[in-house]
């Protein structure tokens, strides 16, 4: 087999070798490369014909085994695949420059929302039918089998067009040696995930065509290269480099581990708390074993993903409690739900938006959906007696939002009191500084909260008007850190004046070239994903 070379941006320096596994979308986000209108329409036509065949086969099977009534649903599916309105809209999307997969997905979501808006209890059934055929079409378009078929026993290098957050959470992390994605930038979800898991990845390789399930490949994240079907000689050289690399990495890690349990203090005497960003219970132990002094950002979305209905207060409570207990009195900052924008959860039925980053998300959604928000606040309050728990509100732009959230929090406290439930009555409340508005208003916001935590990813995006998912402009973020630094400085001064403290939990916190600057501005806490904990701790103690 001929050798194939793919180049992209390497994430988390490392080298791995193993077999490739192509990730087939379960239909969540179907993105692909636009091959031109005529070809997309032809692909759609073929997929439609094949889908009809499959549906007819299923119908026959259902008729034989289940009976006429059950088989009828496939008749509906067949009609949907042939429906003029449905297909008309798909074709319109293709004419508008979308690839067939995406056109199907957009249309399905649009109809799903429309049917949902009718407020009928049977909407669930209707929506499922539409999602079903949409998934089926997308699967055919991507030439794939369903996700769960052909599980591999050995570890593999996962190859995908791109991964959505909900897809990434469903992956079996123990099986993955590395990631390769056609799309994505160093700040895309796949990259963030790869960093969080400490495994090498390659993003933005352009195309993954030509890679097949089971191909042996060498992934060199340092050089940003993937070699599929390499020669014997190349494999030998690679393995040699790999073990040399691993040896150096191991030595460095041993040194860092030896200082792991000492507080991180700069040479100038400034104490910095080193906290971990986590997105699930499973990351608590690794965080602790890498010296985390607390959880600086618990992304609470994980309890809402991969399911069809809202989690109950009990479910939320038991998970928060478990984390609080495991952290043994170390601070756990739970960021309340940040849904919307690029983090969609189907059952929230959030409308599709032209400009989601500036749209209906995070605290904006929570303040509207009091029942959802209050269930979370109550769960956090109840968990607070099992450790040191703090609340953090995302995407704040005004005092008003803090006041409203605190009112709801007080309401929850009163309810819990009357029910005889205990909680930490002095629970800390903080906000994310991730909008320029919050930084500019930090003097008044600081009076209302105990702490700030700077979400540098969004703050950068909103400050310098760069979409970090857009490969054409993403690089502008890397060079242009000064505007964001000024906003951090402003916020730091404001909160310190009120006797509070400030942390940084975005990607910048893990960027060792910025540590000195952050320390200079008086940042009290750096919260990073687990693999960065040791490195950041080491860097702080080298700072002036």
């Amino acid at each position, binding site marked *: 087999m001929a050798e194939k070379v793919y180049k992209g941006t390497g994430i988390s320096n490392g080298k791995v070798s193993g077999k490739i596994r192509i990730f087939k979308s379960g239909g969540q986000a179907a993105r692909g490369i636009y091959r031109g209108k005529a070809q997309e329409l032809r692909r759609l036509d073929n997929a439609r014909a094949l889908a009809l065949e499959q549906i007819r086969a299923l119908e026959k099977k259902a008729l034989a085994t289940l009976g006429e009534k059950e088989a009828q649903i496939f*008749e*509906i599916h067949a009609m949907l695949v042939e429906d003029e309105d449905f297909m008309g809209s798909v074709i319109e999307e293709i004419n508008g420059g979308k690839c067939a997969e995406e056109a199907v997905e957009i249309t399905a979501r649009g109809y799903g929302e*429309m049917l949902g808006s009718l407020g009928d209890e*049977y909407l669930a059934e*209707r929506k499922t039918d539409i999602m079903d055929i949409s998934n089926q079409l997308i699967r055919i378009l991507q030439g794939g089998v369903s996700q769960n078929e052909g599980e591999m026993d050995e570890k593999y290098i996962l190859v995908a067009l791109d991964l959505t957050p909900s897809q990434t959470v469903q992956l079996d992390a123990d099986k993955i040696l590395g990631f390769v994605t056609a799309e994505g930038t160093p700040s895309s979800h796949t990259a963030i995930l790869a960093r969080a898991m400490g495994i090498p990845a390659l993003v933005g390789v352009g195309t993954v065509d030509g890679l097949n399930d089971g191909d042996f490949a060498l992934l060199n994240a340092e050089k940003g290269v993937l070699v599929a079907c390499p020669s014997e000689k190349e494999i030998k050289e690679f393995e040699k480099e790999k073990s040399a690399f691993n040896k150096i990495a191991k030595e460095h890690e041993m040194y860092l581990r030896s200082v792991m349990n000492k507080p991180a203090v700069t040479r100038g005497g400034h104490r910095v708390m080193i906290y971990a960003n986590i997105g699930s219970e499973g990351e608590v132990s690794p965080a602790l074993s890498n010296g985390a002094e607390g959880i600086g950002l618990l992304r609470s979305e994980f309890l809402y993903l991969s399911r069809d209905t809202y989690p109950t207060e009990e479910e939320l409570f038991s998970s928060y409690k478990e984390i609080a207990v495991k952290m043994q009195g170390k601070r756990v900052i739970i960021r309340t739900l940040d849904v919307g924008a690029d983090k969609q959860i189907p059952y929230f039925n959030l409308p599709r938006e032209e400009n989601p980053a500036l749209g209906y998300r995070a605290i904006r959604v929570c303040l509207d959906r009091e029942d959802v928000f209050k269930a979370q606040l109550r769960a956090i309050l109840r968990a607070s007696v099992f450790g040191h728990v703090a609340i953090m509100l995302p995407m704040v732009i005004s005092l008003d939002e803090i006041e409203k959230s605190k009112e709801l929090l007080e309401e929850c406290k009163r309810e819990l009191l009357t029910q005889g439930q205990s909680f930490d009555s002095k629970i800390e409340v903080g906000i994310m500084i991730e909008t320029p508005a919050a930084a500019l208003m930090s003097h008044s916001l600081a009076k209302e909260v105990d702490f700030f935590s700077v979400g540098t990813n969004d703050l950068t995006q909103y400050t310098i008007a760069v979409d970090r998912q857009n490969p054409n402009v993403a690089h502008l973020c890397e060079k242009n850190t000064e505007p964001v630094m000024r906003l951090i400085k402003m916020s730091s001064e404001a909160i310190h004046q009120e006797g509070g403290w400030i942390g940084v939990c975005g990607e910048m916190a893990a960027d060792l070239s910025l540590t000195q600057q952050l320390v200079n501005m008086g940042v009290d806490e750096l919260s990073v994903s687990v693999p960065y904990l040791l490195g950041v701790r080491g860097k702080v103690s080298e700072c002036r």
Partner: protein
Amino acid sequence: MKEFRHIIKDKNGLHARPAGMLATLARSFESDIKVEAGGKAADGKRLLSLMSLGARYETELKFTISGSDEELALRALTEHCRTKLNGE
């Protein structure tokens, strides 16, 4: 042009399955078949269009049939509504 009205007695309303059956039947005629409910109009031969009416239990459907086989279509559709959309 023929018209008739039917009040949905199926407590599930005009959901996917009955809408599908209705559309299948409507397609067997040449006539144009318009279905109106709650101020919205749908093409009786199109499933999604019918589903979009969101017609529930006890909603009145107004059928307007026009074309060469309208008489035949009227009879068949009336019969269909009587037997299939009556909440058996």
